[in-house]
């Protein structure tokens, strides 16, 4: 469930799962004292059932604003009303002076067949990568149509196109497509409108779309597209369902609306998505049990930053790893929160776990390039990022075709990672590595073997991988030795005959585990395995 650790607020084991979410939102909202929450818990019959969260939040929502500073625990529980920050005055600034409108519709009921059909049509255009030039407006229109008929996804994609244009993650048809790498894409600046995008995201969050959180944070923190908080606004140019529009317009100020949207939106999201890992830093990870202090704000005056940080907490609760990484960074440097390395390390660990999953996605190993812009390189920034337009890469390609081994390996690497502006194309990478391997290059043999072993850029072929590793190992390649060791260790891929063939090659009593580990730990300088391996490497 959501928060399996002991809850920071009341610090009792029973407050885990969806209830923890409720408490965590209270912490972040910081508007209720602990005893009030305790009273609510006692007087209610909430269970750990996820469906209770929405109701719980609505109940809490209607609770009159209580001063959070009237008890010691209350001080701790409050994120906004820290005594050092000015206590009551801060509460007054941020507190809700009026009851917020509670969402009365169920987002799931709004979607109709038109929205489904429009979304499908728009997505097909994206998947097929067809006709960017002419299609941009059409696609935008289809998403808008889906959004008007209540599609949270359609509204999100419409907003992302408004904000990021083609670069938005969801509209990126394929990382492999070289079409996106060239400069032939038309500028979509004419379509850009971050303010429209902002309201679109808000609407999408109302409909319970978690994907809207991080882009919304992006806008709030950068200030781009964020309208003044206390002005009235119209939403005529945003493709919203009439119910959503009425809901967004029902509040007297944007700030109030946003607060309402966040709580409602998070409640909706939580009933749809339940993360399995604990999402907030538990008390025992903090020094001296002052964990809650860390949720206090460093600066009491910036309402928008607080909203954004609140959204980050919400996203973190809902399992968005980007939010966890962002929180880790904020706690590390004390940006918008009080600096605390314990909390930073906690969020860092959560996001690193996710990064590890990303890293090991088949064929998806990320590449990190020195893609930094600065004044010195203004005129040179294209250099090294032009992909197949790069003269040096073209030259390398020609040499590779002539059979030049280092060029073959280098081209394999470029295609494997999709580096220097080249598209990621692992089938081609494998081809280049194989060519290098045939010409006796250890690097090529190891590159090809690794891809054969994992099934990247083509089918898996374990026995072929073993042969390539063996050949490279016999030429003294450490990488190949490790590859072989790995395969021995996870020996299920090698059948008996293959293993015995390898054993015959290397010696009669070759014990895989001994070789993998024993030699490293072995203290006998005369060990024959050690000598054998030394002679190889």
């Amino acid at each position, binding site marked *: 469930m959501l928060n399996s650790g002991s809850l920071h607020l009341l610090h009792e084991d029973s407050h885990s799962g969806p209830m923890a979410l409720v408490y965590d939102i209270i912490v972040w909202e910081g508007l209720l004292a602990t005893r009030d929450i305790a009273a609510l818990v006692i007087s209610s019959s909430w269970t750990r059932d996820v469906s209770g969260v929405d109701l719980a939040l609505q109940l809490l929502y209607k609770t009159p604003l209580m001063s959070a500073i009237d008890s010691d625990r209350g001080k701790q529980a409050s994120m906004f009303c820290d005594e050092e920050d000015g206590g009551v005055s801060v509460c007054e600034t941020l507190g809700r002076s009026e009851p917020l409108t509670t969402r009365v519709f169920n987002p799931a009921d709004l979607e109709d067949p038109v929205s489904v059909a429009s979304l499908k049509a728009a997505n097909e255009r994206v998947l097929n990568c067809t006709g960017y030039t002419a299609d941009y407006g059409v696609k935008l229109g289809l998403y808008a149509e889906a959004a008007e008929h209540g599609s949270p996804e359609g509204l999100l994609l419409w907003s992302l196109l408004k904000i990021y244009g083609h670069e938005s993650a969801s509209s990126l048809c394929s990382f492999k497509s070289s079409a996106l790498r060239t400069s032939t894409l038309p500028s979509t600046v004419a379509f850009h409108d971050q303010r429209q995008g902002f309201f679109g995201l808000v609407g999408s969050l109302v409909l319970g779309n978690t994907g809207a959180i991080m882009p919304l944070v992006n806008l709030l923190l*950068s200030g781009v597209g964020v309208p003044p908080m206390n002005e009235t606004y119209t939403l005529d140019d945003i493709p919203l369902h009439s119910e959503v529009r009425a809901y967004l317009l029902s509040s007297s100020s944007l700030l109030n609306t946003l607060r309402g949207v966040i709580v409602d939106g998070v409640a909706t999201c939580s009933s749809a998505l339940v993360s399995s890992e604990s999402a907030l830093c538990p008390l025992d990870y903090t020094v001296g049990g002052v964990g809650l202090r860390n949720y206090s704000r460093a600066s009491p005056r910036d309402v928008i930053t607080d909203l954004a940080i609140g959204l980050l907490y919400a996203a973190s609760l809902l399992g968005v*790893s980007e939010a966890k990484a962002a929180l*880790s*960074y904020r706690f590390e440097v004390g940006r918008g929160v009080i600096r605390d390395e314990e909390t930073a390390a906690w969020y860092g660990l959560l996001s690193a776990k996710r990064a590890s999953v990303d890293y090991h996605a088949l064929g998806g190993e990320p590449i990190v390039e020195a893609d930094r812009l600065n004044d010195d390189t203004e005129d040179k920034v294209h250099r090294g990022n032009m992909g197949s337009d790069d003269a040096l890469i073209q030259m390398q390609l020609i040499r590779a075709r002539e059979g030049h081994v280092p060029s073959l390996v280098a081209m394999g690497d470029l295609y494997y990672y999709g580096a220097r502006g080249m598209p990621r194309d692992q089938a081609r990478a494998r081809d280049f590595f194989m060519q290098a391997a045939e010409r006796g290059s250890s690097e090529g043999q190891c590159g090809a073997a690794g891809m054969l072993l994992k099934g990247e850029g083509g089918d898996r072929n374990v026995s072929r991988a073993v042969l390539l590793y063996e050949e490279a190992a016999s030429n003294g390649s450490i990488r190949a030795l490790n590859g072989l060791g790995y395969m021995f260790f996870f020996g299920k891929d090698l059948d008996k005959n293959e293993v015995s063939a390898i054993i015959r090659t290397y010696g009669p009593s070759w014990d895989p585990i001994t070789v*993998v580990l024993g*030699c490293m730990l072995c203290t006998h300088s005369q060990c024959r395995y050690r000598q054998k391996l030394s002679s190889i490497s």
Partner: protein
Amino acid sequence: MIAAESQRDGDSLFNAGYCLLHGRGVPQNYRFARELFSIAANKFGHFDSVFTLGSMMIEGTGGLRSATSSLRYLKAAYSIGSYHAWIRRGLDAYLNGHYEKSAMCYLRASEIGDASRYHHDMHL
């Protein structure tokens, strides 16, 4: 493994460390495992070693528990997540002359940390 001992690549060190950490084929030895991960992480910027070492440090496995030291490694590890792609999107947008878009992408990336850090990335 002889490959690990030669300290010429991160994978060998990690695999040896992994076996020590989990007691696979050898007696469990957290301290030794942590040493090997440390070499693989610092010398080769090996991702799995960086991540495992950071986790061990925050949990206090095989040595002292330290949030400060673990953060150094965890940060390097989480920077690699899929959101890292915003940096590249920013550059691509810039190269294509879509400066507004580029700025939005870089702003989003900057939430995860100092962009210049990506320059050195796993090399800590």
